[in-house]
């Protein structure tokens, strides 16, 4: 046996850099920024300090050691943060979205400088990351500003008495934006996709949070007066259903039955329609390309329309308040879901039997019936039960837009603010859905 080459234990390969190695530099950078901010004034001087600190950060992670880069960062910081402060100082009605955008633009200028340094020192990058870096710094500043407004921190500055807060707040905002931007800069070498994903998620979340006025405080406030709210809902009033002289629409039993009927019609006819469609919308069983694309795009488009929109469309077409509209809506809804589930299953079938059937001279439809359908029949049954279950859930609510079923009753009672009666209907719906789901799960488990 020939001896293997001895590994050279003296010379170790250099350790690859890991993203956690950047944590130390970023933490120190943040602390230094904080100290500089507390002692330093807002404006160009502060910006220059930020620039110098970012250069220090880049030095530490061995990105650049050149004086020219340091100069670029310091000047960029001075210009960028003085624009930032100018925009914020000029405000007279608090921080509006426009003022925030102007301020963020200033920070974005500094971001461009940082991006340029990064680009200059990293072979293999196109110039575009310069812009991305600008966007990261600017977006970071904008998000932090919005967060500060949302938390009610920036409103305080308006009062005039609390002017001493101003500098500290400016500094806090610029620290946060600097940290976000610098982290983004570092991420360009470590994890481009994931840092983008995290940044994107964060920015969208803050925007959305702000835009719809979401407030955790409100949730807790309302939860603390839960007894008052429950007073409206409890006890559930089942009695009105039985009271004599009510118009027939108020009959909950009939409404529930109507819901079931809508679901049965929708699921049965929808699944029947979906079966041929999904064979045509699947490559191995489609007769030709034109039919394939037609069937596939038809299924894709009807899938995008939510159940309630189908209901309102059909109710508009055939008349409001008629359960027939609900049945039509449920047919479309079932076709969409069944078509998607089934065509994906058909895509994955064993092609052998199909080939054999074709070789024996079967037409395309015969091939589907005798070679393809038997393979997916158990799935078809299981999906049909699932679709029926979904139909029950959906047909409970389509009454809201005038398509029949128990939802119509719920909508009526809601409009009269009869919350205890609403509660009774909700309990009935809840029970019906739970029971149907349990039965469906039991049968599916037996079948598959």
């Amino acid at each position, binding site marked *: 046996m020939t001896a293997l080459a001895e590994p050279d234990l003296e010379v170790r390969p250099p350790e690859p850099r890991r993203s956690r190695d950047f944590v130390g530099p970023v933490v120190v950078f943040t602390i230094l920024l904080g100290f500089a901010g507390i002692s330093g004034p807002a404006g160009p001087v502060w910006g220059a300090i930020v620039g110098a600190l970012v250069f220090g950060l880049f030095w530490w992670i061995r990105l650049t050691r050149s004086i020219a880069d340091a100069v670029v960062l310091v000047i960029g910081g001075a210009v960028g943060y003085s624009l930032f402060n100018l925009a914020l100082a000029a405000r007279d009605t608090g921080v509006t979205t426009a003022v925030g955008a102007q301020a963020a633009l200033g920070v974005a200028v500094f971001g461009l400088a940082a991006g340029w340094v990064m680009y200059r020192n990293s072979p293999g990058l196109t110039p575009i990351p310069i812009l991305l870096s600008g966007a990261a710094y600017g977006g970071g500043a904008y998000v932090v500003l919005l967060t500060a407004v949302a938390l009610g921190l920036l409103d305080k500055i308006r009062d005039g008495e609390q002017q001493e807060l101003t500098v500290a707040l400016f500094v806090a905002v610029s620290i946060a934006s600097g940290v976000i931007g610098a982290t983004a800069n570092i991420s360009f070498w470590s*994890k481009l996709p994931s840092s983008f994903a995290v940044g994107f998620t964060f920015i969208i979340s803050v925007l959305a949070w702000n835009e719809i006025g979401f407030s955790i405080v409100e949730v807790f406030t309302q939860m603390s007066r839960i007894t008052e709210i429950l007073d409206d809902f409890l006890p559930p009033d089942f009695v009105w259903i039985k009271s004599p002289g009510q118009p027939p629409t108020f009959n909950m039993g009939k409404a529930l039955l109507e819901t079931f009927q809508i679901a*049965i019609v929708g699921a049965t006819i929808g699944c029947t329609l979906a079966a041929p469609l999904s064979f045509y919308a699947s490559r191995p069983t489609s007769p030709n390309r034109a039919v394939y694309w037609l069937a596939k795009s038809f299924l894709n488009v009807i899938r995008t329309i939510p159940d309630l929109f189908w209901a309102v469309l059909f109710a508009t077409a055939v008349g409001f308040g008629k359960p027939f509209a609900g049945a039509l809506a449920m047919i479309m809804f079932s076709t969409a879901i069944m078509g998607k589930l089934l065509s994906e299953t058909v895509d994955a079938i064993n092609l052998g039997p199909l080939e054999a059937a074709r070789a024996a001279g079967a037409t395309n439809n015969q091939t589907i019936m005798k070679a393809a359908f038997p393979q997916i029949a158990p799935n078809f049954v299981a999906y049909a039960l699932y679709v029926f279950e979904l139909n029950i859930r959906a047909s409970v609510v389509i009454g809201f837009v005038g398509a029949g079923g128990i939802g119509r009753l719920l909508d009526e009672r809601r409009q009269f603010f009869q919350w205890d009666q609403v509660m009774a209907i909700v309990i009935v719906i809840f029970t019906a859905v739970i029971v149907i789901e349990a039965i469906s799960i039991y049968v599916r488990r037996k079948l598959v």
Partner: protein
Amino acid sequence: MTVPDLTPDAIHDMVRPEESLWPRIIKWGVTVGIIVPLIWSVVGLEISIGRMLATPGQVWSLLTGMFPPDFDDWPRLMSKLLESLYVAWIGTLIGAAFSFPAGFMAATNIAPRWVAIPTRGILSGIRAFPELVLAIIFIVPFGLGPFTGALAIGLHSIGTLGKLSSEVIEGVDEGPVEAIGASGGNLFMKMRFGIVPQAMPNIVAYWLYRFEINVRASAVLGIVGAGGIGAEIVGRLRFRGDWPKAGAALLLTIGAVLVIDAISASVRRRIITGQPSRTVISKWMTAITGSHRDPRFEIENA
């Protein structure tokens, strides 16, 4: 060993095994079991031949009424659409944040039975309320507006995502978890290093998938006044009879849903397979940023 006599005459004389009657009985039973309720429903819903024949014409007149759509007040429509997307996003965030611990609590392989069974019950209880019903209930304390919609969607998402996450967690390979336990890891370490690395891709994919569903749900919630584009479509069709504008809102919704589905599907594929997706968008991304390979900064599995 005897060879059976297979001459034609001998085959003719063989007794054919009697076919069992059961498959036929089941087949006909199932057929009747489907047809009878269908007929009962059709009669109950007062669906007549005349009505069915009239439907295509009615749908056609609706379509011609809605198209060409009227995009005159598109800024308002866009802002409503955006509101729907925001509601869906926040709802998904709430769902993801709360369903993650709930998923662990409902998984029988990590949580004790006395925790897992009640958690499952709560999750399926939450799921039984449709978003719209939750929105109606939440309107009482939280008032009309997108905030209510986000809460309703969020709560429903906790139910569905909690169930899906617990199924993913139950499906993980037990080996690493056992190994961590054997080397002295506590419950938290088992979860963090044994389960999360295995389950996370699937769970995140479910979050994205739930976002797709929530976009559709939040588009609808405007019907009860919980924010978003639903009120535009339903109000215009039902109460104002302004069909071309409703058509515009509907088209915008369909377009947005299609785009979001496509993006989300490609991201999910990327997360599940770990392979870069070969979509046009990702090619553009590489073309735009360049592929940076600096040996000083080569990271993880370089």
